[in-house]
């Protein structure tokens, strides 16, 4: 008789909804089924209704954690159609933005992983160290997560170089903190006992499921788009691909923690070597054709496919986020484990359902208004003000109402 334990859709394991149906014997999981569809809205269709200039802004909202990933990668795909070389300064800026994003994403994962195994201290520490990263991101791009920087052919705005000394100081502090955190996590015997041998994904399975990113690298596959198909400033900087062969949750943690160090180094080098020059290839016309963009997101290889029909809007935008291929590998890595381990394994590949399900927004059939990012901000502030008025209160200063 099959007993199915349902985890989700609204379950404290995940910030986002998804259902896992665990068929269990005692606490041992003998089969696992994933039910998605709670977030699916479908952005691919909407992208076909936006100009090439607007799509990156839209794609930033596929996922809040790797927002730059999707917008930069869309640019990669279009630049693939164009056969365009991006100006060096723009490549370096993309590198800085991307690596900062990787740092905050990895720290976020370490924290959440701690939270999932009830290790609140790790959660708090990791997220404490994540805050300065977001500060740096804000100092450099003007926003904590959504930078709105990438643009086909380069980046939209330059980085404020007067902020660099401050950022460097923060990076130096972060370096020590990350080292401490890495040491604390890797040397903890209880943690090692809890995580080793859990959720093992062998190299063969990893290849068959086509997993990417830290999930694949922890299983011994040295796949990293930054090295495989060098883009941005990576070929000119000094860093290395981290791999582990165990394939278990501990290995995934090790890979991410060691990558943190590499990423900090990358940001530092990119800021050091940031060349002068234009940040943008100028106005572009995209001809008919198709292009594939690849980008190493914090969670692994991100693939965008863009088909252009010569107009100023793409004909088809296909987004494949890393979680989309990482999540199905649960079937291989979870079966035979206990419920506790399965939840941990689920967390270990850092699933991101927003990315996985994307959104499918349809063209404005009634010719209604389109809302840009600044409109969103304006609308949001108006609403806050209205609510404040309704409550008969002065607007809160924290809301930065201009």
């Amino acid at each position: 008789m099959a007993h199915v334990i349902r985890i989700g859709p609204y379950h404290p394991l995940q910030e986002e909804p998804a259902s896992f149906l665990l068929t269990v014997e005692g606490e041992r999981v003998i089969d696992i089924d994933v039910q998605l569809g709670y977030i699916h809205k479908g952005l691919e269709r909407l992208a076909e209704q936006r100009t090439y200039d607007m799509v990156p802004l839209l794609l930033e909202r596929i996922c809040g954690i790797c927002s730059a990933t999707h917008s930069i990668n869309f640019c990669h795909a279009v630049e693939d159609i164009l056969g365009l070389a991006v100006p060096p300064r723009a490549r370096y800026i993309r590198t800085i933005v991307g690596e900062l994003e990787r740092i905050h994403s990895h720290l976020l994962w370490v924290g959440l992983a701690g939270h999932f195994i009830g290790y609140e201290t790790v959660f708090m520490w990791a997220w404490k160290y994540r805050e300065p990263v977001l500060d740096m991101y804000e100092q450099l791009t003007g926003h904590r997560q959504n930078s709105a920087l990438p643009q086909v052919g380069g980046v939209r705005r330059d980085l404020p170089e007067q902020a660099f000394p401050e950022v460097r100081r923060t990076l130096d502090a972060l370096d020590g903190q990350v080292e401490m955190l890495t040491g604390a996590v890797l040397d903890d015997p209880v943690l090692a006992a809890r995580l080793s041998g859990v959720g093992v994904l062998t190299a063969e399975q990893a290849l068959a499921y086509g997993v990417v990113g830290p999930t694949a690298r922890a299983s011994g596959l040295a796949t990293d788009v930054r090295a495989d198909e060098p883009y941005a400033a990576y070929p000119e900087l000094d860093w290395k691909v981290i791999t582990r062969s165990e394939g278990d949750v501990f290995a995934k943690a090790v890979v991410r923690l060691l990558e943190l160090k590499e990423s900090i180094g990358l940001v530092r080098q990119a800021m050091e070597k940031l060349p002068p020059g234009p940040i943008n290839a100028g106005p572009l016309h995209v001809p008919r054709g198709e292009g594939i963009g690849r980008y190493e997101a914090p969670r692994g290889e991100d693939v965008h496919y863009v088909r252009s029909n010569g107009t100023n809007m793409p004909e088809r935008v296909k987004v494949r986020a890393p979680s989309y291929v990482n999540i199905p590998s649960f079937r291989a890595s979870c079966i035979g484990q206990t419920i506790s381990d399965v939840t941990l394994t689920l967390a270990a590949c850092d699933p991101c359902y927003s990315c996985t399900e994307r959104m499918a927004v349809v063209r404005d059939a009634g010719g209604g208004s389109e809302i840009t990012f600044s409109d969103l901000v304006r609308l949001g502030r108006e609403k806050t003000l209205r609510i404040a008025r309704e409550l008969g209160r002065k607007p809160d200063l924290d809301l930065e109402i201009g």
Partner: protein
Amino acid sequence: MGHVIEHMFLFLVFPGLLFTAAVGFLLQWGDRRLAAMLQWRVGPPPAQPVWDVAKLLGKEVIVPEQAWRRGFLALPFVALSAAALAATLIWSAALQIDVAPVGDLIVVLYVLAIPALAVMLGAACSGNPLGAVGASREMKLILAYELPFVIAIVVAVFQRRTLGEEVVSASTLSLSGLVEFQKEVGAIIARPSGLLAFIVALLCCHAKLGLVPFDMAEAECEIGEGAHIEFSGALLGLLRLTRALLTAALPVLLVTVFWGGMEQSAGGGAVFLLKVLLIVVIHVLIRSTSPRVRIDQAMRFFWGPATLLALIALLLAGSGA
């Protein structure tokens, strides 16, 4: 008749329900505050545990249709009552309050198990499968820690000391008897066997309180608060009150059995308080520096190293060390 009134006072006011709850809330706040400080946070205000319970008591109670309604509603009350009884017995012994005793060590051990049992039965009868997983884990955890805990207690019970020519043995299941014994020959914890047993018992109490790393029965990230998942409003409030009582009662039990209870002298109260606080601090340190383990790991730990340690203590106690 006089005893009845006295017992009622002991049970309801001091050192039972009211007093222990107050101490428990304070200790819980201290626990949360200390944990927050370890995490570079400020943590909640001192009255937070009280507010939490007060709020919950005012909230609606939700009962799933398939649950065993009467039991589901009644069990938290039983849990509270049992915890209050255990607290009364433990504190009375620790403070050496001289009223006809109601029960002793064995009774305390059994009554202490009732709150966990009530939660377990409540989770099992709610009809929620995740609750059932939580109940099964809770039961397995009890199975796991009860063995070393019992051995550790037995080590205290069978302590022997040589006073001059005479061999004195505690050999009693009476709490006040143990206190008397320790007054006579010194704290049990002062000897190797007692110390070992105390360490084991401390770990078991950690599990009894459901603290990380042994909180798998309520693992929110795995089974959505597990055994507590269906309890809401006032029922949850009662369970939290129960938890507060246990927080204040278990360290006192440890101090009473292994560490001589409270000396009835000027500084005795302060020393006693320090002992209790030390135990709470150890609990906080353990829970802040470890991840939740799997239930089978917990069982292996308690039936393996912990039991072994306790048995060594027992051997030492047998040889008089």
